[in-house]
């Protein structure tokens, strides 16, 4: 069964990208933010001498999970249930939304507080709750900005990355009820203070919270939420009822495995040695935190993805967003062009696999195959390899109608046409991954940037020499393929 929800693009990537490219302010904001985070990530990754060994372990743990997933899910369910949680299962987004809506209804609450969660965005939970008359209040600062602006997220970690501080101030001034305009400047500290005041009463009175989970430990039934602001802790600790929506691939086998991911994730995502707060809880603890704990395990296209021997590595993803931050295409078009809550390189391989077809079929072309995403990925997902694989299966499936591909390719050339800007973006992307190469070099492992074009040529006539730059390759393709 294919996945559904906010992962199905309405417009093909090239069309959407053209719209976004017209927005110069958006490009400037994205450029500034992604370059800030690249530099930070590079610094904190470089200080970990065993980074490469952690990546290898992280990838292997996740592959092990995929090979043993039924047993591990059953083990997780048994452990969480024994600890006092109730575990539910949902085949797709509609079923997941129905389960959660029913659980909230049963409490009698008409308002819930939410911790930022990709799974709930994916299944369109807020919209479903609204249809049932339940208001979902996003409590993560960036989610709050997006919600107040009546916009959609454009980045998996910082959904409001497309806004700068001045724009955020304006959104708060216009849309935040009761905001203190005199105190509201565009200083980040003043904006954070406004969010604190706005949400405090809601945290202290909320009866129901909804979260996702970064990790679910099969051995113990433990869930983990990694966050910064303390809004997560508020939601996970104060309400009486906690409902966590968790993709089935979030499992890790043992508590010990967290020692790998709690090192990989913060440095890869916000570029910090550790994020300010991580919460771990196992079922219900009498006297401490929610008295009723529900866990909804969601498939929504994950089992389809698992069936593809090349594509399944996308299920290792820990949603750190490093691949977005180093991607020259993402930097130029932003998250909205991908039409899914999963944008950027991971979105280009995950959304089409979760959903099957439609406009998502153009997403595997939303890349230059420069390889920066693979170098940045903490669980070593070979994104270029999967992109080529998906393009190939797309081309094979549509051999009679190659026009979709050609249209996509032509639009990508338009996206990347400005040589100067593209070259700069690519250089920056390569710089962003440099510490990894250095780390590998120190350990005496010679690892070349993967260039999976041999796979590409399998369904093509023209061989593609691996030493060519993207632009050279691109120019040649344009000549060969002009209709």
């Amino acid at each position, binding site marked *: 069964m294919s996945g559904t929800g906010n992962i199905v693009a309405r417009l093909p990537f090239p069309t959407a990208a053209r719209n976004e490219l017209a927005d110069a302010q958006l490009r400037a904001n994205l450029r500034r933010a992604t370059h800030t985070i690249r530099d930070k990530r590079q610094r904190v990754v470089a200080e970990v001498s065993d980074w490469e060994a952690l990546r290898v372990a992280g990838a292997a743990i996740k592959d092990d999970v*995929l090979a043993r997933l039924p047993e591990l*899910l059953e083990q997780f369910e048994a452990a969480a249930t024994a600890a006092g949680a109730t575990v539910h299962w949902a085949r797709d987004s509609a079923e997941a939304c129905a389960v959660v809506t029913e659980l909230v209804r049963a409490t009698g609450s008409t308002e819930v507080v939410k911790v930022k969660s990709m799974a709930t965005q994916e299944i369109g939970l807020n919209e479903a709750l609204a249809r049932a008359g339940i208001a979902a209040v996003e409590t993560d600062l960036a989610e709050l900005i997006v919600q107040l602006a009546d916009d959609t997220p454009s980045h998996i970690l910082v959904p409001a990355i497309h806004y700068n501080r001045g724009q955020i101030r304006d959104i708060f001034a216009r849309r935040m009820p009761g905001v203190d305009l005199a105190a509201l400047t565009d200083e980040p500290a003043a904006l954070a203070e406004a969010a604190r005041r706005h949400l*405090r009463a809601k945290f202290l009175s909320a009866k129901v919270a909804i979260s996702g989970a970064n990790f679910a430990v099969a051995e113990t039934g433990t869930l983990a939420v990694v966050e910064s602001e303390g809004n997560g802790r508020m939601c996970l600790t104060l309400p009486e009822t906690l409902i966590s929506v968790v993709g089935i691939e979030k499992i890790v086998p043992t508590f010990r495995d967290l020692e790998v991911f709690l090192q990989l994730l*913060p440095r890869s995502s916000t570029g910090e040695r550790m994020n*300010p707060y991580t*919460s771990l809880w196992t079922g219900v603890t009498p006297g401490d935190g929610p008295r009723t704990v529900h866990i909804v395990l969601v498939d929504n296209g994950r089992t389809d993805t698992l069936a593809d021997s090349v594509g399944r590595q996308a299920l290792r993803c820990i949603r750190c967003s490093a691949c977005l931050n180093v991607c020259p295409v993402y930097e130029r078009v932003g998250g909205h062009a991908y039409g899914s809550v999963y944008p950027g390189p991971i979105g280009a391989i995950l959304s089409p696999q979760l959903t099957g077809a439609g406009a998502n079929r153009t997403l595997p072309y939303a890349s230059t195959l420069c390889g920066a995403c693979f170098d940045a990925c903490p669980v070593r997902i070979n994104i270029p390899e999967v992109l080529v694989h998906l393009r190939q299966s797309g081309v094979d499936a549509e051999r009679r109608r190659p026009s979709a591909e050609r249209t996509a390719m032509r639009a990508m050339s338009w996206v990347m046409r400005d040589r100067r800007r593209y070259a700069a973006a690519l250089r920056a992307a390569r710089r962003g991954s440099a510490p990894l190469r250095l780390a590998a070099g120190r350990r005496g492992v010679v690892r070349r940037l993967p260039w999976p074009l041999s796979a590409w040529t399998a369904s093509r006539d023209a061989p593609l020499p691996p030493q060519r730059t993207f632009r050279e390759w691109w120019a040649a393709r344009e000549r060969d393929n002009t209709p």
Partner: protein
Amino acid sequence: MSARDEILGRIRAARPEGRVAVPREYRTVHAADTDLVGLLVDRLVDYRATVRRCGTDEVAATVAELLAGVPRLAVPPGVPEEWLAAYSGTVVRDGTPRPLTVADLDAPGLAVLTGCAVAVAQTGTLLLDAGPDQGRRLLSLVPDHHLCVVHTGQVVAGVPQALARLADPTRPLTLVSGPSATSDIELNRVEGVHGPRRLDVIVVDR
């Protein structure tokens, strides 16, 4: 068929064959000569926590110094009396006579004093595991000022050593690395959102 059975059946049909070996060549031990306490202090200061180092006989004085001007202090059941000996404000102890409420803890001018289970030098992280001197999770969450006492014997080098030290991983766990912060505005870290905006750490040599 139930959703559960259908999903499990689909996974069984789709999953790869064979077992995967997990190589764990990353570091789980560190050189004994590393100055772990110095590293921890450096990391905490980097997160803009206030840090004091003192001897075992100076804890009470250091607590009082950091709480100058703070009229009320919440403490979990197991915080030792001797930490509080020099503090002149009012101490409210969770559970005596009754559990503290959210409203109690949200009162202006209230700070909280806890211990911790273990601290990670490399990342500047304090792990709270709901032990007697740490208490329920809301104690270290709702007040705007958290003061945490760490003994040097609780400091380990990295995350693997810290998780291995936990007595029971199924207790509610909170990892704290600096005061509440956000990276959501232009991807820069700004201190102070919903969790405690002031984090003070007393590192006790022993």
